[in-house]
């Protein structure tokens, strides 16, 4: 049995600023706890860009008003703005926690992009998609990397939230307020993101 690889980076990935903002405190806390660098990745999802071209797609702003006349250029500009703000927020949070940090703005499909970025020892933090909810619980999947357990416990203590250990988590039951600590598996990532609504902390 090989010794557990120490955490090198905590990578917070998001497809927009709203997702990143929601998960930034969690990611910063994990990096501080693990003594790792904090990395931010804004992935300009190809599917989202494609939406701007799809005649059938509809857009609704966060206040519930329908948006019209979107095109790839406006969507691209919106990504650039989100990337800039994400980087600023990340830098401020990392500086306040005395962490080294990095930021990357990339394009591609989410699962493929993450698979390309993650290296052994990294911790991926993936927001809960379109759903927003306050953090309610920390869930540690059985069989996860040994290094995940102390991080999950520390996060639960820091956030004053209960920690559940589940042998076989029913992913469909985990809502947007749950944070699931589990193992990163690149080939299952797309299905995992499509089939769950919780926040993921994945050990690479």
């Amino acid at each position: 049995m090989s010794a557990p690889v120490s955490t090198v980076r905590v990578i917070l990935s998001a497809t927009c600023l709203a997702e990143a903002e929601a998960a930034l405190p969690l990611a910063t806390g994990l990096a501080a706890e693990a003594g790792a660098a904090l990395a931010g990745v804004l992935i300009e999802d190809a599917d989202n860009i494609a939406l701007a071209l799809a005649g059938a797609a509809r857009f609704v702003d966060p206040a519930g008003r329908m948006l019209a006349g979107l095109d790839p250029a406006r969507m691209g500009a919106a990504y650039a703005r989100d990337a800039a703000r994400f980087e600023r927020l990340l830098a401020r949070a990392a500086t306040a926690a005395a962490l080294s940090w990095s930021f990357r703005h990339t394009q591609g499909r989410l699962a493929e992009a993450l698979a390309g970025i993650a290296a052994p020892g990294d911790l991926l933090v993936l927001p809960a998609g379109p759903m927003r909810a306050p953090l309610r619980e920390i869930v540690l999947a059985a069989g996860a990397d040994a290094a995940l357990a102390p991080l999950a416990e520390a996060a639960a203590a820091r956030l004053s939230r209960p920690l559940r250990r589940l042998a076989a988590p029913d992913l469909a039951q985990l809502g947007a307020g749950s944070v699931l600590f589990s193992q990163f598996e690149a080939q299952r990532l797309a299905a995992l993101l499509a089939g769950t609504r919780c926040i993921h902390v994945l050990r690479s």
Partner: protein
Amino acid sequence: MDQIATGQPLSARHLAGEEDFALGFATTAELDPLSDWPGQDRALEALRLAAGTDHGDFNLYVLGTPGTGRHSATRQVLAEAAARRPPPPDRVYVNRFDDPRRPIAIELPPGRAVELRDALRKVVNDLADDIPAIFESEDYQTRRRAIEDSYSERHEQAMGVLADAARARGVAIVRTPMGFGVAPRKGDEILPPDEYEKLPQAERERIGAAIDAVRAQLEDVLKDVPRGLKAQRAEVEELNIAMAREGVDAALADALGRFADHPSVTRHLQALREDLIDNAELFLIREDGAQAGAFPVATSRHHLKPQFRRYAVNVIVGQDPDQASGAPVIEESLPTLANLIGRIEYASDQGTLVTNFTMIRPGALHRANGGFLILDAMQVLTEPLAWDALKRSLKSGEVAIYSAGERFSLISTETLDPDPMPLKLRVVLVGDRRLYYLLAEFDPDFGRLFKLEADFDDRMERSADSALLLARLIGTMARDDGLRPVAADGVARLLAESLRLADDGERFGLNLAALGDILREADHIARASGADAIGRDDVEAAIAAADRRAGRLRERSQEAISRGLLLIDTDGARVGQVNALSVLEIGKTRFGRPGRVSARVRMGAGKLVDIEREAELGGPIHSKGVMILSGYLAGSYAPDLPFSLWASLVFEQSYGGVEGDSASAAELFALLSALADLPIDQSLAVTGSVNQFGEVQAIGGVNEKVEGFFDTCAARGLTGRQGVLIPVSNVPHLVLRPRVRDAMDAGRFRVIPIATVDEGIALLTGRPTGVRGGNGAFPPDSVNGRVEARLIGYAEARQRFGQKPSPSETDG
């Protein structure tokens, strides 16, 4: 005192002096202390009335000469009256929470202002600990989380249902930088646009309809979010208020109970309770950054933090409940506007002047409220706006605080308009008489607001009883000042000096300050000599030393005479020239000085030229005196003929102003000498005024005048012939220095009282004055006979000049 004979030299037994006092004690240590002020019964009666009555506007003006005990008597009488009065209520300013510009004034029983202040400090200190604890408690956190969770779950559930419904209809909801996207899906991913375009029309229409339906539902869910957040905030707010209310009520319970019987305090505490509940977040402010400092703030002193000043109690008048007794007696030595009515202070905050009710400071009117306020009249009148403010407060019966800048609209910064405080006190102004009469004349409010006057006399009738009272007062002064007791001969010398200060051998002067100064200096001399008591010689030495210190000008004046710079004859005889006497008073120095008065006469049209007046050096009273001489001459001599005299009168070598009529007798004697062509004995000097009937009248400063001529004569050698003619009515005023009295006793100097001009001119010329005989004429060789003859001669000569020349004279 023996009968006074005019025209005869006085002896020392005719004069008042220390020998007159037979005091039946060895030293003042044997005497009972005197707590009263002798000779001031009238003033003390007024003081006691002002101190005792409750009627409004019976304020008092204490007038009199400085040194007569005005201040000490006022202080003592008021202190005695104040001790019998109940202590006044305490007064505080508190915040008016709905209008902080207008602080509320509250009246409390004596000693309870500090209690209220401390009680509210404790409330704040307790809440500063309790409220954070309440909001950090598990109970609060759980209840708040439950509220937040209920709303977020509702939203989450709605989004979840929508997401499931969308998935079932083949539609995906994704998050993008522009918001939410709703698009057809293919498995777990978005259906690419080109694939979508290849779908059959019917399928595209079905997907389009599904997308529109999901989009519409999504819009509803998202629009519901702000409403949910608002409701959530309201619910959290209600929770916060409920939690704060519990803490505030617990903290305030003690204060509310202790002040339950004071409606105004209870009202304030209720308003404070509402404000505490509404602003509970003030207690959750954490001190971060630079303000936190290296050390934590002591947990018991949270009330000092700026955010809690709104809950403070500003004690304007507060008394220690253990020591509160009697009414206050306040003496304000600097009665500026602010020191009288209080002031509102300001602090600079980022370049702006700001203030609040805790920066209201009380004035003397606040501190004296319910008691007595002693002010110096001149000080109040010379401080800008102070007199106006004092009158305004007394008239309105309340103290309103404002600044001079505000009154003149000189400041535009935000300020306060505190409730005026009810005012009930007795104001006592101490000042001089002139000011009192000016105020009475020119300020219509003065008489209404200051109905009482305490007029301190500056002299007291001399008697054995009053001498003993004064002796006791001298003993009391010595005792109070920690001086040696005064021996009987020392007291006698002081009593004589008191007569001298009054310029009257029959009245004691009541300038206690001057007597006190002599006493202290005499004690200093007695200590140097190792004496146990202050004796006569010590007092005499103190008086002489004070005279010497103030004697530079007097010595210069005598020096000018002895060096011949100022021409004064003290022997021989001269026609139309007489020694007159004047008094110079500069600062504390007062001394007599001889001066030469001369007269020249010739025929004229009845004009008496007063050279002093012509040169504008003579004052109106002096001019009046000279005019009286014309009346005397015209009425006394050759009444049937035109008054045909031209005469000039002058004070020789006088370059300053001349005022008063005390030299009119001397001027008349010079005139008569010139008219009679009879020389005047220069070893004599004259003082006194005359009337048109030739009576010699009393003048002031007789002691200094006699001593002034005595010193001149003594410097040249006393001959025994030298002396001074004084009005007989001035004899009771003679309290001469021992050197003069000794010379008089030894027959080396004379003081001769006269009652009429005739007596005086006879003494001065050595000729009988002469009275009209049966033929209506004066004896030819008498003074009057010679004067009348001269005047008749002038009249006849004038008549001749007035006659027309005879034809023979004109024809030549």
